[in-house]
């Protein structure tokens, strides 16, 4: 290994420590026995997880978050997968512009989106309702589904679909029996990331959420402004675990396909 290569590796290892340290520390601290945030913990215990489980409000927030994120992922897939296919197949005037519009919610600051929706939903009495949050989260999840699935559709050979059509399959049949199975890995990872987008969302919930629609991140936010409680590190660890799980699911399904 040359000297410059060694330097690069030293830099990269330092960067990796920087990237992963907060995640490792918060996971370790959540298993601390005392309420102090010492790292590494002098004594390990799962008491903060137990207290989390025993708290009704945390449990309810967890169930609500999970249900909401599942529905958002489902809706984003139902709307997004056909649209991504359409985008990948069609070449019409201004389709680049349309694609830009469809991706743009990820680039508009979340606080601006939240405010716009807040002003729209207020007179419609959708603030604090699950429906309002569901619509807002689906908007944020759609660009991710569109990007991942459209990329997979572009890699797909259109001839296999034509072959199905020329064998007598209707359009719907060819789409469901040929296209969808072929892009299944992309659909799974798009669903996982759509779920995660909703599950981790904070800013939209602050504006659009109410007492009956408290998600885990919103409850963390409210608690951290009040006091830094060790149970928060336990909830954060759960959020991290869900993220890593989604990432693993996406990686594994893609690897299956390439091998």
């Amino acid at each position, binding site marked *: 290994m040359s000297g*410059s290569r060694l330097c690069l590796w030293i830099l990269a290892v330092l960067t*990796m420590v920087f990237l992963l340290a*907060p995640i490792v520390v918060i996971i370790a601290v959540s298993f601390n026995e005392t309420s102090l945030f010492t790292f590494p913990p002098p004594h390990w215990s799962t008491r903060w997880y137990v207290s989390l489980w025993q708290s009704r409000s945390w449990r309810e927030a967890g169930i609500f978050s999970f249900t909401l994120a599942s529905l958002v992922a489902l809706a984003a897939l139902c709307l997004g997968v056909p649209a991504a296919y359409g985008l990948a197949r*069609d070449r019409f005037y201004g389709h680049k512009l349309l694609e830009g519009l469809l991706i743009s919610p990820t680039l508009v600051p979340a606080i601006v989106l939240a405010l716009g929706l807040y002003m729209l939903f207020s007179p419609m009495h959708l603030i604090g309702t699950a429906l309002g949050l569901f619509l807002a989260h689906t908007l944020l999840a759609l660009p991710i589904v569109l990007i991942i699935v459209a990329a997979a559709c572009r890699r797909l050979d259109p001839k296999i679909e*034509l072959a199905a059509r020329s064998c007598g399959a209707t359009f719907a049949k060819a789409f469901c029996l040929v296209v969808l199975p072929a892009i299944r890995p992309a659909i799974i990872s798009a669903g996982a990331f759509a779920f995660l987008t909703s599950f981790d969302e904070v800013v939209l919930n602050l504006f659009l959420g109410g007492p009956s629609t408290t998600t885990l991140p919103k409850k963390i936010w409210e608690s951290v402004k009040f006091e830094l409680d060790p149970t928060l590190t336990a909830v954060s660890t759960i*959020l991290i675990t869900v993220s890593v799980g989604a990432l693993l699911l996406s990686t594994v399904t893609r690897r299956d396909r390439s091998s």
Partner: protein
Amino acid sequence: MSEVALLLQSRSAVRAWRARPRVMIAGVLGFYALVYCLPMLVLLSWAFRGGGGVWTLANLTHLLSDETYSVVFVTTFRMAAVTTMVCTIIGYPYAYLLATAGPKARTLLAAAVMIPFWTSVLARSLAWVILLGRRGVMNDWLVSMGLIDQPIQMLFNGIGVQIGMVHVLLPFMVLPVWSILARLDVGLPMAARSLGATPLKAFLHVTLPLSMPGVTAGATLVFMLAVGFYITPALLGGPGDITIATLIDTVIRDLLDWPFGATISLTLVAIVGAIFALGATIAGGGRIAGLENHG
């Protein structure tokens, strides 16, 4: 030949097949019209609303004339600029290594970027509160190692926000640069070497210029996201770290001034749009927006 015959035979089928995609986009377009375009129009209308339902530019002139707000804009831009610079300096060598390392090392390096990238920003910001607090992990370690006598203030004074923002936005720099470096023809720097260039010269005159579109895309993305960032400044920042996003929050939820909040929001969108347009003319819009290809 058989393919051509197939295509000719089913020309009407092909025509019908081509028409379908347009129908399939309709659902998403309807959804965007209601949940994306409509709220943005409502926001726009609030920005120009005065007392008693008259249309006015008063909110905009108020924003532009008051010095309190220009301070907020300067703070935000400074923060975004520092974040972009640090991300470029740290991110480029990392992306270079990612593009040139063997498969095993690459998996490790990529995981270290992708795990934080998809981890809740809130959880990570919370982790920084625990790490950087007065009685936090970092101060504990530094004091026990004898490097400092007194715990140093790292939170609520700008340093914490800067660290937290670099942590959140670093992947947005690494991914586009990695993507362009990985597709770079390895023969090009090798040709430069064979013509007598030192490794440094080959890098500076061949690899670096060819990877600039990736750097531009990454820098645009990091700057855009940093300007509109809310969670990290709100959680790790002190009273002196009011950014455009935290200002919008205060104006709307504490002062309940919808027209003024809408005006600041539109200004923020205009700024973000201008940054995107600038980056897109240099690096291409697709390169900036298509980042999630890696996800």
